[in-house]
C-alpha cells in the first residue's frame, strides 16, 4: 500500500518536517545571530531580539520557497539579518524623521561620552554592555562602517557578499573597512589599550 500525503500523521507531514528541520538550523545559529544583532543595534537588546525573530521568519519563508541552497547557513542567515536590520532602521527613520547623518551624529556624541567622567544613561548602558576594548572600539564606529566590519571582519563574509548585503560597490566596502579599522585602532590607543593588540 502506498501512503499518500493525507495518510501521514500531521507530525510526519512534509511541511511539519520542513519546519522542524528549519527550527533545528535556527536554534543552532541563534546565539551567533543574537550576538551579531546586539552589535548591530548597540545596547538595544529588545530590538536585537526582534530583528533576529524577523530574520528567522523571513529565512523560513525563503527556505520553504527553495531559496536556500543548503550551503553556508550562517552566512545566509547573517545576510537576511542584515536586511532586517536595515529595514528596521529605515522604518524608524520614517517614523522619527531622522536621517542617517543625524543618527550617526547621535552615535558620535554617545561615543564621545565614553571618554567622559560623567557618563549619561545611554553611555552607562553602552559601557556595561560592551566592556571589552574591542567591543567598545567596534561600537565607536558609524553604523555604515560598523556593518562592514561586522560582516567582513567578524563574520568573515567575502567582500562580494558584504557588498550585496549592504547594496554598495565592493570598492566602498574596502574603503569603509580601511577607515573603520583606522578608527578602531585610534579608539583602542586612546583607551590606552594598545597592549591588547600584542
Amino acid at each position, binding site marked *: 500500500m502506498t501512503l499518500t500525503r493525507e495518510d501521514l500523521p500531521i507530525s510526519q507531514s512534509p*511541511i511539519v518536517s520542513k*519546519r522542524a528541520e*528549519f*527550527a533545528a538550523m*535556527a536554534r543552532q545559529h*541563534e*546565539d*551567533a545571530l*543574537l*550576538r551579531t544583532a*546586539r552589535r548591530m543595534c548597540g545596547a538595544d537588546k529588545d530590538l536585537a*531580539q526582534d530583528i*533576529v*525573530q524577523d530574520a*528567522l*521568519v523571513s529565512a*523560513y*519563508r525563503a527556505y*520553504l520557497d527553495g531559496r536556500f541552497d543548503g550551503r553556508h547557513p550562517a552566512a545566509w542567515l547573517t545576510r537576511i539579518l542584515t536586511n532586517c536590520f536595515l529595514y528596521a532602521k529605515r522604518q524608524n527613520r520614517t517614523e522619527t524623521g531622522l536621517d542617517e547623518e543625524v543618527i550617526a551624529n547621535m552615535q558620535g556624541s554617545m561615543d564621545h561620552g565614553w571618554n567622559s567622567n560623567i557618563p549619561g544613561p545611554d553611555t552607562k548602558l553602552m559601557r556595561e554592555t560592551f566592556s571589552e576594548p*574591542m*567591543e567598545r572600539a*567596534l561600537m565607536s564606529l558609524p553604523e555604515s562602517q560598523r556593518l562592514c*566590519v561586522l560582516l*567582513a*571582519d*567578524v*563574520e*568573515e563574509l567575502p*567582500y562580494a557578499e558584504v557588498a550585496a548585503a549592504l547594496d554598495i560597490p565592493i570598492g566602498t566596502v*574596502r574603503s569603509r*573597512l*580601511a577607515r573603520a*579599522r*583606522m578608527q*578602531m*585602532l*585610534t579608539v*583602542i*590607543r586612546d583607551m590606552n589599550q*594598545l597592549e*591588547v*593588540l*600584542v
Partner: protein
Amino acid sequence: MKLHKDSGDSLEPCPHMESMLNQTADGTASKLVEIYARAHAARCPRCGTFLARLTAMLGKLRRMSTEPAEPEKLDEKQWESLEARFAEVEG
C-alpha cells in the same frame, strides 16, 4: 622604496601603503601585493607597526564571532511566538 620616519605614537602608515597593508592583513591581497607590502613593512617602522597591530586586531575581531562564550538564546515564549509565525508563513 619610499619610506617614512617613525613618528612615535602615530598609528598611520605611509599613505600610499594603507590599502596594500589592509589587504595583506585581511588576506585579500594578491601574492605580489603581499610580498611588496611585507617587504615595505619590514623596512618601515610605521608600516611595520601598523601591519602588526592591524593583523592582531583582525584576529581578535574574528574571535568575536564566537565570543562572548556564554550563549545568548531566545526564550521559550519567543520560540513559541516564532513557531506561530512559521505556521502563518506556511499559510
